[in-house]
């Protein structure tokens, strides 16, 4: 009965949406489980595992670990030799920092050794793990959680994330394929687009959003300026770029661009919090004095400042934990380890923090400017 009532209450649009999501979910799950023919690389599914050897090892820093050797029989899932069995060996340690323990049912990318003898079984080496289904699973749990809890706002944040990712990917393509355009210019344009799209999507077309967009852009560019000046002024002493990973391009520019895209979300958050709460006060009482608005605005700013800087701090620093542990376990001195691995992350977090704090007064005055304009018109 309850279920029927609920169904009646749902509009046709909603039913259509749920059906669409259901179909997408089913189709994508089916696809990643049976997409082996689409891969060029041979994929094999582990069907039998035998642990052949266990040895205790101690490295030069007295760290104790155990090494295991697995003999694996797997079945090829694609290519000319689909269905045939392949024999693989795998070695892993109990810490699994750079190796894997495989289990029955795991799907692996393999390379097949050129076979001399037709009758003997295939042999090969393991190249990697097929992880696509796990990424997809996490993505669906994410999407469903956001929809279930966030309803319309959840849907909008998913859309905003998707649009921003596509935009970022496109912006990087433009950067990589056109020589001569600086990454910072491309990032500048992207930041304007990211801000406009995300804030309009999440908050709609209204004056609160416009004030937040202006404040975000001002805040971001001001903090860019300050960070740039500090870096110039101190000639970047103490920043250890040598540990920056994955560098194929001028690393300083990549780092700076990362700093600004990274803090953008937090700055937007501060800007929209400031503008919607100040506008909220104004809407409750149209005659509220500018002085009162300023005082309340600063109070709100004080409340969010600490937690916002914390968000960025943890989001940046946590990624370094595995590397810090590896360094320290290899008897690197603590201060050396920290400065090698955390200097860039800390600079990022501090620059982001500067952006966040500056956006509080900037957001306050921008919103007041918009309110004054509204009053003048009325």
């Amino acid at each position, binding site marked *: 009965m309850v279920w029927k009532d609920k169904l009646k209450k749902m509009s046709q649009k909603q039913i259509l949406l749920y059906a669409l999501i259901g179909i997408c979910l089913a189709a994508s799950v089916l696809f990643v489980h049976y997409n082996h023919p689409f891969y060029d690389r041979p994929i094999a599914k582990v069907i039998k595992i035998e642990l052949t050897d266990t040895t205790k090892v101690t490295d030069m820093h007295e*760290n104790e*670990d155990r090494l295991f050797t697995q003999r694996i029989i797997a079945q090829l899932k694609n290519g000319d030799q689909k269905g045939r069995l392949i024999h693989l060996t795998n070695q892993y340690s*109990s810490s*699994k920092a750079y190796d894997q323990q495989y289990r029955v049912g795991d799907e692996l990318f393999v390379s097949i050794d050129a076979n001399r003898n037709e009758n003997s079984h295939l042999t090969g080496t393991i190249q*990697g*793990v097929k*992880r696509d289904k*796990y*990424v997809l699973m*996490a993505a669906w*749990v*994410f999407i469903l*959680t*956001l929809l279930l*809890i*966030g309803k319309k706002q*959840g849907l909008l*944040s998913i859309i*905003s994330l998707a649009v921003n990712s596509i935009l970022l990917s496109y912006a990087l393509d433009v*950067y990589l394929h056109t020589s001569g355009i600086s990454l910072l210019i491309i990032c500048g344009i992207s930041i304007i687009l990211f801000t406009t799209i995300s804030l309009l999507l*999440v908050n709609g077309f209204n004056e609160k959003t416009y004030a937040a967009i202006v404040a975000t852009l001002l805040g971001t560019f001001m903090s860019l300026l300050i960070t740039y000046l500090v870096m110039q002024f101190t000639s970047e002493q103490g*920043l250890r770029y040598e540990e920056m*990973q*994955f560098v*194929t*391009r001028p690393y300083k520019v*990549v780092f700076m*661009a*990362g700093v600004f*895209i*990274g803090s953008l979300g937090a700055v*937007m*958050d501060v800007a929209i919090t400031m503008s919607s709460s100040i506008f909220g006060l104004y809407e409750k009482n149209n005659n509220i004095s500018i002085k009162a608005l300023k005082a309340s605005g600063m109070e709100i700013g*004080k*409340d969010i*400042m*600490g937690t*916002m*800087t914390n*968000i*960025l701090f*943890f*989001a*940046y620093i946590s990624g370094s*934990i*595995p590397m810090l*542990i*590896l*360094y*320290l*376990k290899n008897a690197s001195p*603590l201060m050396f380890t920290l400065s090698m691995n955390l200097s860039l992350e800390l*600079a*990022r977090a*501090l620059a*982001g*923090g500067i952006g966040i*704090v*500056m956006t*509080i007064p900037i957001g306050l005055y921008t919103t007041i400017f918009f309110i004054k304009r509204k009053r003048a018109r009325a």
Partner: protein
Amino acid sequence: MNTLFWLGTILFILMVLVGGKKGARSFLAIFFNFGVLILTILIMLIPKADPIILTLIASTLISCISLFYINGVSTKTITAFISSIATVVILLFFIVIVTENAMIQGFGEEEAEGISAFSLYIGIDFVKIGASVIIMSTIGAITDTAIAISSPMREIFHHHPSISRKDLFAFGLRMGRDLLGTSTNTLFFAFFGSYLALLIWFKDLSYSIDQIVNSKIFSAEMIAIFFAGIGVASTIPITSWVTAYFLVKKGRK
């Protein structure tokens, strides 16, 4: 002079100018949190210490610092604290399962060069470390969401003490939904920013889509982003429920 020192000084000055005493406390909180993080890492070096339990203890301390030290001890911070810890525990359970199955722990092939000088057999379970990384990168956002919901809920309860638990819960959910978009955005851009170099690397070396999706680093990063979103979203009903329960219980006495 050192760049970090000056950036830190500027941040401190700005925080004091804008936030006064509370600003100074917020700045100190960053330092305390940094201390907790480093201490946790140092304890993780002991092979017998379980990284998951250490992460739970660290999350508790970090939530204490972010909530009680900056905002003081009150009903709203206490319920926010309980909710944050509850969210972390629930999230941790799922994250451990996923990191184990997806094999996203430790270092990827792309990092091989950087770690080649090190001994990798160090006797520490990197699967658990991987789960810990995901939790730690979200803990800031979880406490932020929790306090942002419990604080207006307390205000509403203060103005309407006769409000029912159900209505209070519904109010919390509504507040939370309004925050959801911006909080998830904050995390996404932070992740985007720190992995910009990786994205450029993938594109420069013309990785194919299937190589990117199945690579350890990328899938680890995507799973971390998704779990961060899941964490922030699930904080909303948990905090609304916990706060509604405690406020109404306390109010009725």
